[in-house]
């Protein structure tokens, strides 16, 4: 067994455990902290895959910025304790459906690797390693999706500003 495999198994266990902890935790703050740990573990996975840029970006954006804001909101609203029976009617079937799709995808990838079915695409985005490569790929090959994403983010930002503005006027 190689060192990488051992590392991977430990990290995978941590990732699954933190994900479960986040789902099952009754306290919103603990749930958020589990999610932070989960993001950090995913960042280490990126490091194992030889993609330091993605790893560091993951920590900065998800573990650093987004989760801090989550925690901020949880603490500001004082909703630390979740209500006992807080279920949305549509949530369960949707979750099951999405889970099945994810399982099917995983099965397909496993089968494709064994050569049992033909892989959908031979060209996998080869973004690894250096930030230079990531930058070139983003701005040359994937410019349109990149710009559309930035537009989406801009729309969301403007939306947030507008929503908070209107609340103030009342």
């Amino acid at each position: 067994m190689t060192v990488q495999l051992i590392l991977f198994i430990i990290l995978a266990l941590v990732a699954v455990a933190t994900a479960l902890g986040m789902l099952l935790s009754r306290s919103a703050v603990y749930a958020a902290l589990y999610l932070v740990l989960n993001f950090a573990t995913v960042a280490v996975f990126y490091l194992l895959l030889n993609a330091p840029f993605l790893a560091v970006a993951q920590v900065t954006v998800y573990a650093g910025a987004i989760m801090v804001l989550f925690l901020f909101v949880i603490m500001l609203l004082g909703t630390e304790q979740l209500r006992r029976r807080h279920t949305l009617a549509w949530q369960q079937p949707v979750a099951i459906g999405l889970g099945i799709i994810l399982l099917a995808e995983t099965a397909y990838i496993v089968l494709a690797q064994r050569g049992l079915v033909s892989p959908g695409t031979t060209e996998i985005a080869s973004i690894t390693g250096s930030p230079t490569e990531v930058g070139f790929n983003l701005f040359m090959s994937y410019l349109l999706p990149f710009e559309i994403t930035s537009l989406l983010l801009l729309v969301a930002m403007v939306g947030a500003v507008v929503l908070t503005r209107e609340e103030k006027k009342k």
Partner: protein
Amino acid sequence: MEPALFWEYIIKSGILLLGMTGGFAYLTYYERKALSRLQSRIGPNRAGPWGLLQPIADAVKLIFKEELIPTSANKLLFILAPVITVIPALIITAVIPWGRPIHLFGRDINLFIADINVGVLYITAVASIAVYGIVLAGWSSNNKYAMMGGLRATAQMVSYELALALAFVAPVILAGSMSTVDIVEKQVAMGEPWGAAFGFILGLLRWNLSMPLGFLIFFIASTAEINRSPFDMPEAEQELTAGYHVEYSGMKFALFFMAEYIKMIAVSMIAATLYLGGYNGPWMEQLPILGPVYLFVKVFLLLFLLIWVRGTLPRFRYDQLMAFGWKFLFPLALLNVVIVSIVVALGG
């Protein structure tokens, strides 16, 4: 991994950790001495010659203090929070080079722990997780002042992180690399046409003129990021007694204290590396061992700047602080990036 390399990393990490914690101890002395001179006082002068043993006396006092945990506090997070605060402060300088490679014991030893190709981004990543300790300390104390301090810290650090990250963009664009070693060497390369000693200063001048607002924005944003005066809102005494660490005592309080001072050193090291030539100085070619000395001198002077600011400026009001960060510093940082981009595009 060969054993010698393994030991090299262990020793270098040990030097960094001990250097930072020892630096913390004597930075408190340095600050108290410098502040008292700024305020026409003498400062600590009882423990040892010139009060030099004062940090040790402080440490002993803090170790023997009673540790209190509030009854309705979240115990686990209350104990973890100081640890979570210290760790980012200790690891953030792992990518800062201390000097050129030196030849020692028949080996070429690099004077840095890690030269990764995303070094600058690593700094922003660690800086962005540094806020957790403070937030959790504020929340787990179950005290309204601590809570307010924690919330203020979050809002402030998240806001100033933007300007800070944009300040990092300028040196990265100029050097064409996110590796800190590349950035330092590029600053030397900029002055190369003018010779060794003189060229270093001119190169530094050229480097900083290419991003006229870079150092200033970094300095302001990082002062806010480490909650130093005049941006020490999370611990404003008049409003919040002591802010996020109001319930902490003994060694746990000492850890928060330690994190703040280590962050001061770290920020000074980063500023020296990104804007002031890092370990470089005149006559580096002849004596490469001068590297750490130059870095130390630069950090020492930058620390004085931080203390000087603390001794001079009153604290911001909270709303002014946020307005300043978002409406003034952030656009200014964007402008700085535009200027650098134009300079680089014109071949500067």
